[in-house]
């Protein structure tokens, strides 16, 4: 059935008639205007800036509009080491972003603490507190890697359904869009992770794309 519909669409397009679904149109619009937050933490931020410059030109993907305020941003690129001192602020920024919002964990540090994993003040991965959509390995990842992550995110947005159980979080009325901000303790952050997002569960809507 689905295949027939697809074939029909292609046939119609050959005749100059463009058909689409609301879902497709909605996702197409969103995936091509993902505005990232101007938010750099460490070394990776420099590569993020390089990505936005003329040579790599992230504007090709409609994402050159770096917004300085989280209230205007769709995407948080966690570019660099998240320290324990910084983690509450990162979560707060994420909470301040309006839905639908996405997170790219850029670089080894944002994924797991990376080379600084042994440090007493280094958070071992931002996915302990906020859900991450795309992880990019590398120290720092090249601008091409960030572009690839970006395309992966676009694919992911493109595949979102508007109805049914698989619909994204921002279309579920009861799904949380804010996550608890950790507090500073005497020896460590309290709590040490958010049980809702970490460790990632199989039924989590945040799945790894092939």
């Amino acid at each position, binding site marked *: 059935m689905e295949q027939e519909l697809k074939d029909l669409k292609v046939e119609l397009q050959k005749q100059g008639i463009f058909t689409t679904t609301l879902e497709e149109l909605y996702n197409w619009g969103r995936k091509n205007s993902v505005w990232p937050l*101007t*938010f*750099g*933490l*460490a*070394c990776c*931020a*420099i*590569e993020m*800036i*390089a990505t936005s*410059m*003329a*040579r790599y030109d992230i504007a090709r993907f409609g994402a050159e509009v770096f917004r*300085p305020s989280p209230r205007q941003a769709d995407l948080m690129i966690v570019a*660099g*080491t998240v*320290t324990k*001192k*910084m983690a509450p*602020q990162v979560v707060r*920024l994420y909470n301040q972003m309006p839905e639908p919002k996405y997170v790219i964990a850029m670089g080894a*540090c944002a994924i797991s603490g990376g*080379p*600084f994993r*042994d*440090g*007493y*003040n*280094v958070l071992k991965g931002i996915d302990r507190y906020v859900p991450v959509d795309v992880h990019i390995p590398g*120290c*720092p990842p*090249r601008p091409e890697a960030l572009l690839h992550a970006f395309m992966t995110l676009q694919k992911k947005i493109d595949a979102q359904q508007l109805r049914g159980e698989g619909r994204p979080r921002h279309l579920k009325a009861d799904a949380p869009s804010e996550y608890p901000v950790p507090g500073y303790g005497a020896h460590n952050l309290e709590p040490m992770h958010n049980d809702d997002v970490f460790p990632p569960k199989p039924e989590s809507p945040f799945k790894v794309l092939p």
Partner: protein
Amino acid sequence: MSRDLMMDATGNDERLAPTYGAGQHRLKAERESQILEVSIGPQHPSTHGVFRMDVKLDGERVVQLKPVFGYLHRNHEKIAENGSYLAAIPYTDRLDYLCSMTNNWGYTLAVETLAGITVPERAEYIRVIMAELTRFQNHAGLVGFLLQDMGASGTPLMYAFREREKILDLFEAVSGARMMCNYLRFGGVRVDCTPEWMKETRELVGVLPRFVDEFERLLRGNEILMARTQGVGVLPRELAVNAGVTGPMLRATGVNYDIRKVDRYGIYDRFKFRVPLGEHGDVYDRYMMRVLEMRESISILEQALKEIPEGPVQDPKTKLRGLRPKAGEAYGRIESPKGELGFYLISDGTMNPYRYRVRSPCLINLTILEDMCLGQSVADVVVTLGSVDIVMGEVDR
């Protein structure tokens, strides 16, 4: 605007003040001076990373400014004390992540002082070439960011990054990485540069002056630049010396102190270059220091590329893995693009450094941030901070 409203705005004539609406509030706000506390950062587009300033404002004027650090404190020193001497080199890359080559040099120089290691001639030349390329791209980037802070959104930064990419390509060709080069070793450098690389570098150094010219043409005599920088964020000379300010920040106040000239580390005594000095110690002088130093770097690069000899690039007697320096201590320092970058090492005779300390120019140059900003407007704080040239990886380590 009617006469009534004008009087209202200045608040001179109480009789004419309207008895309702916004005007009344305006009158009130002007009469009672109110101290406003603002926390700028740690997430703010103009703080160059995760830097935070707790500012107290009287209207637009700054009456107090307390910098808050530690949002990128990733325990570099603790990690290095738990690893071997060789293992610390990749971590030094990530200190000042714009200048990995000079960071490597500071650390290797400290280890060489501690263990009495000599460096072959060719490696010394390669180090100078890498350090000056690093200095060039750092200063280009800084000038771009500084102008971005002033509102020149985009263009200067894009120019700077265009040149930076060319230099990063050279770094990548020789070390395999664009930013985190991990290239220098105690007793030399990791791999030799190929003749093709040298040729490419010579070609690039040939065109770099054109970039500086273009940059200067774009901005020299620019009225906005002058107005935003001259007389802003003035740093007195005595305070600069007492507060341990180093690098272009110090030289902008007129103190002739360049560690390349003072310590003559490496082979810097073989090159002819001038040390630019400022007069006023304001943001404009600091900006000009960077531009002039770019020209001097090109001159050093030209000389080094001409004179570089053939030969080995690594001292064969040096044990890279499992280096065990004799018990003792050493302090090694270099002139990094940001100032004096020092490494203090204490060895207890084992494979790990007993104490490993980074003397970060960025952190110490921030000591006098409050002194420079008091009495200025908030917009000038942003420009003053931009002219200090900080990288949070090095401030917080």
